[in-house]
């Protein structure tokens, strides 16, 4: 087995050289991409896979001398494409269908910090009950049972309300 093959064993921890400035820049940009993707898939495992895909697709086509704005633009354009493919595969729909029906709109520029704020904007446009059930469930981490107790309702009714609230939340359009 060659040295290269040994290094290529899946799961190996590589001895990394001191990161160069170019690598630091790329990683900082990929941090933004990661946050951007995480805010849309809601879990670490998928966010890591998709960020890897973005790196795999975009980085070989970039040069270290490219201006930061061009690098960022290309990375986020790639992230949009990767996210579209992700939802398309998971839901078994064409990307065109998804874009039309879901308005899978992703801002042209990176603004991951706006994620929480955007969600608050969405929630404020919902009816009181819908907003409350989503706040308790997602932002406060309540179980269905706890939400039911808090809202003086049954688990079954809260489950239906959660579905309707999410359908309503999907229809809210926030100017990006």
């Amino acid at each position, binding site marked *: 087995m060659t040295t290269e*093959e040994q290094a*290529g064993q*899946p*799961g190996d921890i*590589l001895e*990394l050289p001191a*990161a160069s400035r*170019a690598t630091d820049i*790329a990683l900082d940009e*990929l941090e933004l991409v*990661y*946050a951007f993707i*995480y*805010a*849309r*898939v*809601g*879990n670490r*495992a*998928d*966010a*890591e*896979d998709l*960020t*890897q895909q973005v*790196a*795999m*697709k975009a*980085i*070989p*086509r970039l*040069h*270290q001398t490219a201006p930061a704005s061009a690098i960022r633009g290309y990375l986020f354009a*790639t992230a949009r*494409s*990767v996210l579209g*493919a992700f*939802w398309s595969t*998971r*839901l*078994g*729909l064409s990307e065109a269908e998804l874009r039309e*029906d*879901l308005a899978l709109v992703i801002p042209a520029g990176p603004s991951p910090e706006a*994620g*929480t704020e*955007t*969600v608050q904007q969405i929630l404020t446009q919902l009816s009181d009950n819908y907003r409350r059930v*989503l706040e308790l*469930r*997602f*932002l406060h981490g309540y179980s269905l049972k706890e939400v039911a107790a808090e809202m003086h309702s049954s688990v079954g009714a809260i*489950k*239906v309300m*959660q*579905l309707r609230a*999410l*359908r309503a*939340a*999907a229809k809210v359009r926030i100017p990006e």
Partner: protein
Amino acid sequence: MNRKPEDRLDKIVSDLLRGRRLKLRGGDAEEKAAITAAARLAGARQAPQRMHPAFRNRLAGALEQTPSGGWMTRRGALVAGLGLAAGAAGGAFLSREMETQPRRAGGEPIDPVKGRWVDVAALTDLPEGQGHQVVAGSIGAFLFRRGDSVSAVSSICSHLPCELWWSHRDGHLACPCHPAAFTPDGRPTNAYALPALNTVRVRVTAAGRVEVLGTE
């Protein structure tokens, strides 16, 4: 399974709130809007997420593999363990490059140092063409019967050290740790340029028993 949409959606929400990845089914497309809204809300529970240090290191390793010109090459990324293929936009470019690059084939048989044949099943117990998971000491394998012959591949993903599972619906072995999948003969499905699964030695006795070369 004919579950009510509110039950199905709550399962997806519960998984997201536990930090699990999105596992969707064909029928979930009807609730696509609610599901993407749920993912977005789950993603906004905390302050903007940063990459886990181990993941960031893997990316850094890939970037540092660049020989010249760009940041990294396809080969560099594979060496760093980022064996994920690009999607449609980059597919042609990458596949061309892959043709000229040495690729880790994988698929070598597992020959344990102190191996011994372990009886794992009767041939008649194995469904035709379907994955059947067995354990032979320290060796985990999926058996596949075709007529009177049986083949076996390792039950551990060739990329991340996670135990695969057999998807009846898709007819492939799927990794729970990332969206990689393998055919019954251990080859990665098209989307991922991963090494093939190790094969596991298997034989059928005259008495119709299936034995796997495992360990004590």
